[in-house]
């Protein structure tokens, strides 16, 4: 198949056998698996790290360990920003296209503050960044980092700002200044926190490298629209001994957007398809440049442009983004996009079919029905929960497909529903025989009634209207 060919130019399939051959093959179970082959299978799926194999770490297996490490090394290096529990790992990409495997380490979204912001604004922005939270398919979506920019170019002001931020947040930090003196003043107040240093340029790289080495920090490299300079700096800094780099080829949100898209794409292709280690580092985008030279342009336009650029860069390989927005309407689509792009395409987004109970249902409680597409299920469940209604919910196995598509694709059928009514034992739980079906499955009403001998009530098209529906229709006849 031709997609396989799409992987040519660097990609190769790694089989459990390749890993197994290098393992101690003692089947000692110390890793928690039944045998070395099972462990190898998990290793190639990146579900466990080889360090979980104690015998492999022994001196006599040093060579095999080294070989395995090289074999499993991602095309894009993993870089850790911050320390301890709050550390955020970026990069670690194995592939260019998400369907080739899956993307690891979701793009970090950093929100900026400056060393000239009044206290109230600075702390307000930190608080909003920390407090940003949206529950989506059962997970909490959050922002990732604070980027502190020196607009004053004064070491003392920067030191004070970094101190204030660090005292008020546990989020990892990005310290931004091209002036090494300024950067060091900030760095001295967080000497062990491993912030990302932004950035080494053609002019300051040596001093920046010294700072990165002295404080053991990852270092960003900035060479706007000059990939040869970017790569040359990466080579120079690597030789200098700085091993954790992050690359910034420059972000243009309007004129030059094509250059930005091309740069990110070329860098990632060179890393993933050609094995170019000098560009095999996480990439950083700065949609915040949408705010430059704003003039009299309304703030909403800068927010809007910043958001679309961020969305394109999450798609095109950015591992970190620095943004200025702290507004929910512009950040929410970006944060959800990140969640989407970083889901594992190998796994269906589905929940277990069967019957769920909400609250304390009795024999008169409503019986509703939905599909096992995770998003549908969690949305319905959260609407039922927030309404406080006690009821039964039958979850039909539609192979993880939403209601209307499942009806169209014959994955949600009257047979399946009638069968689920029998299988779940709901007939022993309630004395009525009324099933509320989603509005989008209205077409199935007649057939369900025929097959199940239950009366069908067509519910709302959106589960947000369930409480209203029940209030108006349930128990009214």
């Amino acid at each position, binding site marked *: 198949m031709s997609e396989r060919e799409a992987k040519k130019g660097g990609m190769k399939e790694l089989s459990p056998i390749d890993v197994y051959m290098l393992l101690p093959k003692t089947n000692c179970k110390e890793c928690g698996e039944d045998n070395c082959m099972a462990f190898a299978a998990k290793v190639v799926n990146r579900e466990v790290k080889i360090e979980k194999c104690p015998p492999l770490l022994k001196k006599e297996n040093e060579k095999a360990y080294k070989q395995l490490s090289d074999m499993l090394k991602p095309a894009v290096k993993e870089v850790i920003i911050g320390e301890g529990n709050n550390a955020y790992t970026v990069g670690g990409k194995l592939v260019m296209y998400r369907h080739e495997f899956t993307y690891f380490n979701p793009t970090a979204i950093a929100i900026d503050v400056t060393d000239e912001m009044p206290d109230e604004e600075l702390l307000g922005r930190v608080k909003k960044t920390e407090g940003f939270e949206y529950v989506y398919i059962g997970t909490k979506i959050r922002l990732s980092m604070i980027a502190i920019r020196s607009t004053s170019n004064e070491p003392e002001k920067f030191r004070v700002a970094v101190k204030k931020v660090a005292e008020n947040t546990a989020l990892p930090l990005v310290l931004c200044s091209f002036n090494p003196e300024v950067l060091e003043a900030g760095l001295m107040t967080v000497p062990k926190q491993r912030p990302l240093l932004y950035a080494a340029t053609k002019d300051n790289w040596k001093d920046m490298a010294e700072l990165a080495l002295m404080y053991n920090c990852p270092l960003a490299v900035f060479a706007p629209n000059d990939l040869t300079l970017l790569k040359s700096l990466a080579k120079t800094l690597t030789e200098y001994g700085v091993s954790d780099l992050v690359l910034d080829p420059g972000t243009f949100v309007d004129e030059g957007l094509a250059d930005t898209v091309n740069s990110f794409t070329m860098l990632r292709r060179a890393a993933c398809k050609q094995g170019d280690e000098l560009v095999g580092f996480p990439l950083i985008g700065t949609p915040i*440049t949408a705010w430059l030279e704003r003039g009299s342009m309304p703030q909403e336009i800068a927010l809007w442009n910043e958001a679309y650029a961020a969305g394109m860069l999450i798609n095109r390989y950015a591992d970190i983004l620095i943004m200025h927005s702290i507004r929910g309407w512009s950040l929410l689509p970006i944060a959800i996009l990140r969640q989407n792009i970083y889901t594992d395409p190998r796994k269906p987004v589905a929940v277990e079919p069967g019957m769920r109970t909400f609250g304390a249902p009795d024999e008169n409680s409503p019986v509703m029905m939905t599909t096992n597409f995770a998003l549908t299920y969690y949305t319905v469940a959260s609407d039922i929960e927030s309404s406080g209604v006690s009821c039964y919910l039958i979850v039909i196995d539609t192979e993880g497909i939403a209601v209307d598509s499942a009806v169209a694709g014959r994955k949600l059928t009257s047979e399946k529903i009638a069968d689920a009514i029998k299988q779940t034992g709901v007939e022993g739980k309630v004395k009525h025989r009324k099933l509320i079906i989603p509005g989008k499955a209205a077409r199935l009403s007649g057939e369900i009634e025929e097959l199940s001998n239950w009366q069908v009530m067509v519910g709302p098209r959106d589960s947000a209207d369930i409480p209203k529906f029940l209030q108006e229709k349930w128990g009214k006849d």
Partner: protein
Amino acid sequence: MTHHLPEKKKEKKEDEKEDFLSLFEQLAKFQEIELEDVEMEFGDLELWFQPGAVAAPPLPILKTVPPIAKAKPAEILQADFIPPIEQYPGQVVEVTLGATKSQGGSRGRAITIGGEKSPAFYTFENPTTHRPIISLDVFDMKVPLAKAVKMHVKEVMEDPVAWAKLAVDKFGADMVTMHIISIDPLLKDTSPKDAAKTVENVLQAVDVPLVIGGCGDPKKDAAAFELIAEMAAGERLLFSSVTQDMDIEKVATVINKHDHVALSFTPMDLNQARQLNRRLYDFLPKERIVMDTTTAALGYGLEYAFTIMERARLAALMGDPELQHPMSSGTTNAWAAREAWMEMAPEWDPRELRGPLWEVVTATNLLLAGVDLFMMMHPAAVKTLKDIITELTSGNRGKAEKIASWVSAKI
């Protein structure tokens, strides 16, 4: 209450400030309209399961030199970056929509899409063959719309001719999608003849190429498409869509006979897409087929839609003949996401900005997957996508000095 709208000359970008303001005005018009329900037009969504491929990175170049203390470099070490250009054995076919008088139709211009030789916007490799285009949705009856959309079209919602004109004259639509949904037996069950009359009127009112959107009932759509194809012979309409449960021979034959184009629609499954295209080849030349592998909204399965399209395009370039068609996306499906239209807690407000941005983010991601034809809804989203496409295909270079000191910029 007047819209300040994008004009064609905008693409020259000679007056950026005015550009921004007009976009802002489109976005900012949101205080005026009453609360409305929204249409949940969720396209078919089907999951795709990765067949367990396990990928490994390229074999590392084993460093034979141990990391012994080397002298730290004193100068920048030169390392040339060579653009990683690839050759592809395959190419997407070009499909022309609409026909001018000399071509047998009555459109002001014909639009050609497709023809790609590289993945989307790999312009370091090949220039974009034809810029992706945008078709605006027009319905032949009043439909429930999100408040943010409705406020721009509420005066024309029961007049498809006026709606189509608004889309072209004010919103800068490259094309118009005439949705003849009133023929749906579950809606008004109007006759195919009525639908043909509506299309005829719209053809007279605007001179852009048209897409004909059916109601989703395979029998009714086939009947209406047949009549419309005959009535508008030679116009190169795009019939959206031909599906697996239709009488394909009948529909495709009539589309071919009257010189139109088919939109081959499948529910997020490449094998089904190949299969349907293969069936269509019996009746239609390849360059008369556009394909749609289904669009799901941001937050509601966009990643599946994106990945299916990206895989389809890469496979096409790698030589899979059955996927070498321009791609279309029902981007309006972005509005199926509750977060696009719903009133939420104040920290997520205003939804009048959140909604169209939802459509933009959905669209830009599919743009990067290779979509050639977008069917869209909100005028600000349309304008933004157009500007982005213009920029991506302009050949404009980024000026390093413009962003060089962003770190210390006071914003």
